[in-house]
């Protein structure tokens, strides 16, 4: 197992490095130009533009700029005092990027953990029901609803929910905004109900579909037939054998999806509901073509994706010794 772990760790670092290079290339080399002009404001002087270029190092060769940027990101992660230009800072707001991402984490985690619980629970429920009732009307209705859920743009659902439930007439829910859990747990949940639901809908539909087809496959497997032939109660067969084995792929799916939303993948939901999380921060920076925050959030997101896919592999290996790596 240990070599496997080490190999995965080395791979993780290599991928994160490559990700950072790619993002850097995308923003520095592709547009061709430095942001000094817009940083100098609407009434710039040539001297000031020159000074900005010097201070931020926009006049350096791109590989030097890359190394500097990574150094700055590292400095931002480390505690202690750093100079104005020694930390990865946003071009637009000059905020410490690492710090801003940290500030976004409570909202993002609250959104994702809540939505994750909802989608896992309802996804399994929906999938199990429709597998058991396969072919009946209830299955058909559930299946169509699940597909509708998969087919909806998440931000559109958000806009519609906001319009009907939070803005029009006598609203039932607050209109966006994140309230800290420590400030008021009740308000925290109340403000998050719509975003949770909105983010979960897509996954409920998807997990329901996957689980249903897994369970239907499992029902025709030999071990299930054997169990049934032995006279074990159908309900027990269903729960013990069919459902349990069909859940294994769900574990892997959940790991990857959860990593993606934690890593800023809930960008649309956060933007629609004005939840100032990590994804929201990235969306804000995109409009201003602000490289450092996008770089930071992308690395942060990639970190989660790489970490969770390694975790999923370990869990898999653990649950199913046949695929245990050497």
């Amino acid at each position, binding site marked *: 197992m240990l070599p496997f772990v080490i190999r995965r760790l080395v791979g993780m670092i290599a991928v994160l490095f490559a990700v950072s290079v790619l993002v850097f290339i995308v923003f520095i080399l592709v547009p061709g130009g430095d942001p000094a002009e817009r940083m100098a404001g609407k009434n710039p002087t040539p001297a000031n533009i020159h000074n900005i270029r010097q201070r931020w190092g926009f006049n350096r060769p791109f590989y030097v700029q890359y190394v500097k940027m990574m150094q700055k990101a590292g400095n931002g992660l480390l505690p202690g005092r750093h100079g104005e230009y020694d930390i990865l800072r946003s071009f637009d707001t000059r905020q410490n990027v690492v710090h801003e991402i940290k500030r976004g984490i409570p909202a993002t985690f609250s959104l994702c953990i809540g939505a994750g619980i909802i989608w896992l629970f309802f996804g399994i429920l929906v999938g199990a029901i429709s597998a058991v009732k396969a072919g009946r009307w209830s299955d058909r209705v559930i299946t169509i609803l699940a597909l509708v859920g998969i*087919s909806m*743009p998440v931000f559109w659902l958000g806009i519609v929910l906001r319009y009907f439930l939070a803005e029009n007439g006598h609203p039932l829910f607050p209109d966006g905004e994140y309230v800290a859990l420590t400030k008021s747990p009740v308000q925290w949940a109340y403000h998050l109900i719509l975003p949770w639901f909105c983010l979960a809908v897509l996954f409920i539909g998807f997990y329901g579909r996957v689980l249903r087809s897994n369970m*239907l496959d499992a029902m025709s497997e030999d071990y299930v037939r054997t169990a049934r032939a032995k006279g074990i109660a159908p309900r027990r067969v269903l729960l013990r054998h069919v459902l349990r084995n069909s859940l294994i792929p769900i574990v892997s799916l959940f790991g990857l999806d959860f990593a993606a939303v934690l890593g800023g993948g809930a*960008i649309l939901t956060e933007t629609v509901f004005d939840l100032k999380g990590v994804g929201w921060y990235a969306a804000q920076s995109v409009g201003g*073509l602000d490289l450092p925050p996008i770089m930071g959030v992308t690395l942060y*997101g990639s970190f989660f994706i790489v970490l969770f896919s390694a975790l999923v592999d370990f869990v898999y290996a653990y649950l199913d010794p046949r695929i245990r790596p050497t």
Partner: protein
Amino acid sequence: MAEPATDLTLDSAALLASQEHEVAIVGRSPWYLAWRRLRRNYLALVSLVVFVVIVACCALAPVYATHVAHSGPNTVHAGEKVRVGGVLKDVIGGGSYYDAKTNQFVVRAPEYLGPTWWHAHGRFVLGTDNLGRDVAVRLLYGGLNSLKIGIGSALICTLIAVVLALLAGYYGGWLDWIITRFFDLIWAFPVLLLAIALASALAINGFHHFGINIQAGSLWIPTLVISYVLIPYVGRPVRGQVLSLREKEFIEAAIGQGAGPLRVMFSDLLPNVASTVLVFFTLIIANNILTEAGLSFLGAGVRLPDPSWGNLISSGQNQIQTAPWLSLVPGIAIVLTVLSLNIFGDGLRDALDPRAKVRIEH
């Protein structure tokens, strides 16, 4: 447990496949058999028809614009009047204005002409937006753009992914290593984040490297960006399939008979992964339409004033109180299109290869 019914369920084709009498299928091509299964899946066929109708409607947008609505997608009708069911109405009524006499503003909500259905002889069927543009025309043109991007990026993405997968699977070794690492790299990005990062970087000056010249603001930018970020989602599973096929006797035999690499890849390997690719292709279109909508919503997709379903939703948000149809209608169009593709894709998968699984990104 009840036996599943044989019609109208989404996986009925799969069940049918297992029940097929061997006599009936002897000597038939797999494509014929798949069609036999598919045509009994009414829901999938209905979905296909719905999708084709939507595509046809959007493709006919210019015809609709000139002959029915008498308005282009960007034609401004603010200030005009239109006869709706015999009554002359303002395209945009109300609104605040500055009264020079009193030096005061008179504050009123603007009133946008709502859906006229057919009462205005085809004009403003779905109402108007804040500039007095015909929403129905913009919806169709927007659909055209969304579908162009969705289908175009699916084509490019599938093409590149399949070629890479064939190369990796056939040659193995260092080529496989490089291609797999490339897949891993893109896979490690949060999809939407990479897409908006790429799209907004390209939005400044377009792309002018390696002999490729794409202007900023071109539809090619979202198309290429979306196809690029989704390559591994098709490439990885196809490569897996190719790898296992590579070990099969008939490939060995082909190579033994002196078939060149190109020939093996394209006439022996490709037909065997074609069914999977086709299923992927259908579902990827659906997925890409959603991704395009998300990109445009964040301002990194199709550029206003050119419409797309995504940016129609987001620009309608400003008028949602008085003209909710501006955001609702394009959303419904997306749901219908994507839903029909998803249902059809499911049916196709069941008919072609009951065991294939597709991972849909959001």
